[in-house]
C-alpha cells in the first residue's frame, strides 16, 4: 500500500533521513521506533508532503506522491495525527472535527463519520462546544485521532500518541488504534516511544537510528531481539 524507497530529507544542511526504506501493506499495523532525533517525525512529515524528500520515492496505492502538496495527499487517503497533537486550541471541538472532515468530500458525510468517532471516544460528544485548548492532554489526543478519522482515511499515521498521557488513557488510546485497524479496516503506521506496547500491537516493526533503518521484523521478533531490549525496552534509550 505504501512503499518508501531510499528517502532522503534535509533541513537546510542537516540531513535527517539517510535513505530510508519502509513498506506498509494494506490492513497492517506497522510501528517505527527510535530514539529522540532519529528522524521519526521527519519521516511522517515527508510521507504527508509537509517536508519534501530530496531523493527517493514514495508510492501510495501505485501513485507517486512525493511531489504532491500536503492537502492532496490527505485527499488521497493518508491522514496524520502529528506529534504534540496540534489540535486547533482556539476552535471548538466540533470545529476541529468538522475541519477533519474537509478532505472527506468537503464534509458532506460529517454526520455519519462523527458517529463513528463518538463510538471510539464517547467523551468528545460531551465536549463539542468547548474550545480544543481547554481539553485535558488525553482528551486532546482523542480529539486529534478523531479529527484524523473524520477524513475517512485508508491509512493513518500516528506520531507518539501516548506521549505525555496518563497510563490509563494510554491503554484506551491503544485499544482505539487496534479498533480502527480491525473494525474500520484502516492501515496503521505508528511511531512510538512506548516500544513495548507498540511492538505488542504491531504486525511488523522498524527501528530508525540516525536517519537509517537498522532493524526490521515482526513485532514478536523485535520484542525478543537483544539489542532492542537493551536500547528501548529496559529503561535504556528514551525515558
Amino acid at each position: 500500500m505504501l512503499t518508501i524507497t531510499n528517502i532522503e530529507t534535509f533541513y537546510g544542511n542537516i540531513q535527517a533521513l539517510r535513505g530510508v526504506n519502509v513498506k506498509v501493506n494494506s490492513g497492517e499495523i506497522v510501528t517505527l521506533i527510535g530514539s529522540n532525533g532519529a528522524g521519526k517525525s521527519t519521516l511522517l512529515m515527508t510521507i504527508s508532503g509537509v517536508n519534501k524528500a530530496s531523493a527517493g520515492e514514495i508510492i501510495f496505492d501505485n501513485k507517486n506522491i512525493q511531489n504532491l502538496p500536503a492537502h492532496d495527499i490527505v485527499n488521497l487517503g493518508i491522514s496524520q495525527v502529528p506529534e504534540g497533537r496540534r489540535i486547533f486550541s482556539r476552535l471548538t471541538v466540533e470545529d476541529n472535527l468538522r475541519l477533519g472532515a474537509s478532505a472527506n468530500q468537503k464534509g458532506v458525510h460529517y454526520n455519519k463519520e462523527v458517529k463513528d468517532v463518538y463510538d471510539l471516544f464517547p467523551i468528545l460528544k460531551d465536549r463539542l462546544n468547548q474550545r480544543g485548548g481547554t481539553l485535558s492532554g488525553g482528551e486532546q489526543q482523542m480529539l486529534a485521532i478523531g479529527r484524523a478519522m473524520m477524513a475517512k482515511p485508508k491509512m493513518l499515521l500516528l506520531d507518539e500518541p501516548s506521549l505525555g498521557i496518563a497510563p490509563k488513557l494510554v491503554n484506551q488510546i491503544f485499544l482505539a488504534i487496534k479498533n480502527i485497524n480491525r473494525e474500520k479496516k484502516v492501515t496503521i503506521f505508528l511511531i512510538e516511544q512506548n516500544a513495548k506496547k507498540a511492538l505488542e500491537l504491531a504486525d511488523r516493526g522498524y527501528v530508525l537510528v540516525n536517519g537509517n533503518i537498522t532493524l526490521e521484523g515482526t513485532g514478536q521478533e523485535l520484542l525478543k531481539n537483544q539489542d532492542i531490549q537493551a536500547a528501548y525496552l529496559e529503561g535504556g534509550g528514551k525515558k
Partner: protein
Amino acid sequence: MDLAYFLQQLINGVTLGSVYGLIAIGYTMVYGIIGMINFAHGDIFMVGAFVALISFILFALTSIALPVVLLLTLLIAMVFTACYGWTVEKLAYKPLRKSFRLAPLISALGMSIVLQNYVQAAQGARIKTLQPVIQGGFTFMEETGFTVSLSYLQVFIVLVTIFLMAIFTLLITRTALGRAQRACEQDRTMTALMGINVDRTISITFIIGSSLASVAGMMFVMYYGVIDFYIGFLAGIKAFTAAVLGGIGSIPGAMLGGLLIGLIEVFWSGYISIEYKDIAAFTVLVVVLIFFPTGFLGKPDIEKV
C-alpha cells in the same frame, strides 16, 4: 443648538467610521491569517475608488436607473479590485511566505508604491471629481437654529456597510471557508494536513479584504466627490490604526475600531480643531495601546501545550 450640533457630528462620524471599518477588515483578516501587515491595502482601497469613479462616469452616459447603477458599480468595483488584491498577493507575498518576517512587509511597501504610481500614470496626478450621485436627505431640529441633516447618501453608506459586514461575519463564523481561515490563523501546516488548500484559503482572504476595501473606495468617492492617487495612504493608515485599536486579527474589533476612529476624527474637527484632525486618531491609538496592548477586542491566547 448644542445637541443638534452633537447629533450632526455623530451622523458624520458614523458615516466616516463605516468607510474606515470596511478598510480595516482587510488589514485585520490578512494579519490574522498570515501575520503580516499588508501596507498595500490602502492603495487597494484607492484602486477601488478609481474603479467606482470610472464606472459612475460611464454609467452617467447611459440612462440606466440609479439603483441599478449603484448595484452594478458596487459589483464592478468589488470584482476589479479583488483581482488587484489577488494579484498583489500572488506576485509580492506568496513567493516570500517562507522567507524572513520582514521580507513581505518590505514587498508590501513596494507594492503600495507600484499601485500609486500605476494609477498616477494611468489616470493622471490631478484630482478627479465626481458629481453627486445620490442627492437630498432628511433634516431635523430646524427650530433650534442648527439644522441637522442626514443625507440619503449617508443612510446608503451606513446601510451597505452594515449589510456587508453582516454577510462577511456570517461567512467567517458559519461556513467551511471561515473555519478554514480560522484554522490557518492558528496552524497552517496542520490545516494542510486536514486536506485544506492553504494557498487558496489565503488567496480568498485577500479577495474578501480587497472587495470590502473597494466598497469603502466607492463610498469615499461618493461622499467626498474628489479623489486622487494618493488617498490610499492616509485612509490606509487610519484604517490600520482602527484595526489595531479594535485588536488586530479580530473582525468585530476592526468594525468597532473603524467606528471609533471615524467618530474621534469628526468630533475632534467639530469641537477642537480641524487643523490637527489627522493627529487625533493616532494620539488615541497611542493612549489605548498603553492601556490595552492587544486592542479592545484582541484575543487573549488560551493555549495549552
